């Protein structure tokens, strides 16, 4: 289906979904980029910032699809929207730890590894579903993203398993991070109040199907490191898909958009 043959409701559903996908990767990429220069060793600095760059590319592509659907310029969509307009899940907006990347950063690598691994596995499940999306431009993008995700997943899975199989301290910190991340998994597979609309047009699998596929994917990995999926990880508090967010998001957006805000009219 192309843009011109879309009925208004179908178009609305695509737009709603695209904002969620775009904002997710935008914030995920930003939090990844904050590790630049701070990662545990130099090769990791190269790897994690490369993953952040890829992910920012994915966000840019989703914003461009929104641009094609008449939502406005992709740069403006990325930078000019307020935090209550954002549709990303809570997990990706969380800070990396106390302090800022410029000074006194006390970032937790265990948290980064757990968040990145679990987010990437969830993204992989969604992207594979999007490859069958009824909206062809989105399906095409998903094919492209899926190839890059292969490397991201390989990377974070290696860290995840190795740290959980390492020293007592590493394992304890990873387990703490795991609890923290799972507590924020409430809205990762939620489409918020737009769930019904998105479902009608076969843009992506439903929330429950995606979640089950994700559980099936990670269960063997979790078992290999003696971890279990907590039963209560979907008893929600905030739902980012409906525009509910923590103050961490505002902090991220003001840094991300600092240069853009100096002069939004400048062409890059």
């Amino acid at each position, binding site marked *: 289906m192309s843009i011109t043959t879309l009925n208004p409701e179908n178009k609305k559903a695509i737009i709603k979904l695209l904002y969620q996908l775009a904002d997710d990767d935008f914030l995920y990429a930003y939090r990844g980029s904050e590790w630049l220069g701070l990662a545990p060793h130099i090769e990791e600095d190269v790897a994690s910032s490369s993953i952040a760059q890829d992910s920012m*590319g994915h966000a840019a*592509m989703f914003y461009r699809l929104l641009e094609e659907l008449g939502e406005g310029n992709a740069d403006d969509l990325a930078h000019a929207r307020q935090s209550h307009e954002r549709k990303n899940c809570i997990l990706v907006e969380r800070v990396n730890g106390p302090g800022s990347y410029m000074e006194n950063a006390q970032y937790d690598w265990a948290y980064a590894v757990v968040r990145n691994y679990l987010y990437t596995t969830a993204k992989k499940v969604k992207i594979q579903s999007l490859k069958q999306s009824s909206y062809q431009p989105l399906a095409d993008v998903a094919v*492209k993203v899926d190839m890059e995700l292969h490397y991201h997943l390989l990377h974070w899975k290696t860290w995840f398993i190795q740290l959980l199989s390492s020293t007592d301290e590493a394992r304890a910190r990873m387990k703490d991070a795991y609890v923290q991340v799972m507590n924020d998994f409430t809205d990762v597979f939620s489409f918020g109040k737009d769930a019904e609309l998105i479902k009608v047009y076969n843009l992506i699998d439903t929330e429950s199907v995606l979640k089950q596929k994700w559980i099936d994917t990670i269960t063997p990995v979790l078992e290999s490191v003696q971890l279990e999926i907590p039963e209560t990880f979907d008893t929600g508090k905030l739902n980012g898909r409906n525009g509910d967010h923590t103050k961490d998001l505002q902090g991220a957006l003001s840094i991300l958009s600092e240069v853009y805000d100096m002069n939004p009219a400048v062409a890059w």
Partner: protein
Amino acid sequence: MCTTIQRSKEAVLQVLANVKDPEIDTVSIIDLGMVEGITIENHTVKVEILPTFVGCPALEMIRGNIVKAVNKLEGVEETTVTFINSPPWTSDRITEKGIQGLKEFGIAPPPKYMKEDGSWHVDCPYCSSTYVTLDNIFGPTACRSILYCKSCKNPFEAMKLISSTM
């Protein structure tokens, strides 16, 4: 007569063969298999390009270089470049000339296939030794990895395998 020849597809292809990867001056965008379509309508040339990696910051530079080069052709008044995602770029689109160009630059061409565990192997582009170690799947650009040759003791890079079977 002359303008017709200048505006032929072949002429455009010839020009594009001189548009290099901004970071690897031994390979062109044709060698890399990035050029998917060329359409000529009157005095306008439309070029369709497949990005190797979605977030590649060199894309805008490549766009500029294509426009500059094609606009020099006689009879061409406007050149537009569109980045498209279908078909997806895969590393097997790199031509034989591209493979030679990469090696010349000290970059191992992408491996042809992936092992069952998702890993892959390349030989050293300098000495062809197979005794290499993968230092980092990620490298200085999105499309490259960092390796080390145990035989000739050179660090080197490899183009990542990108395939639709991944």
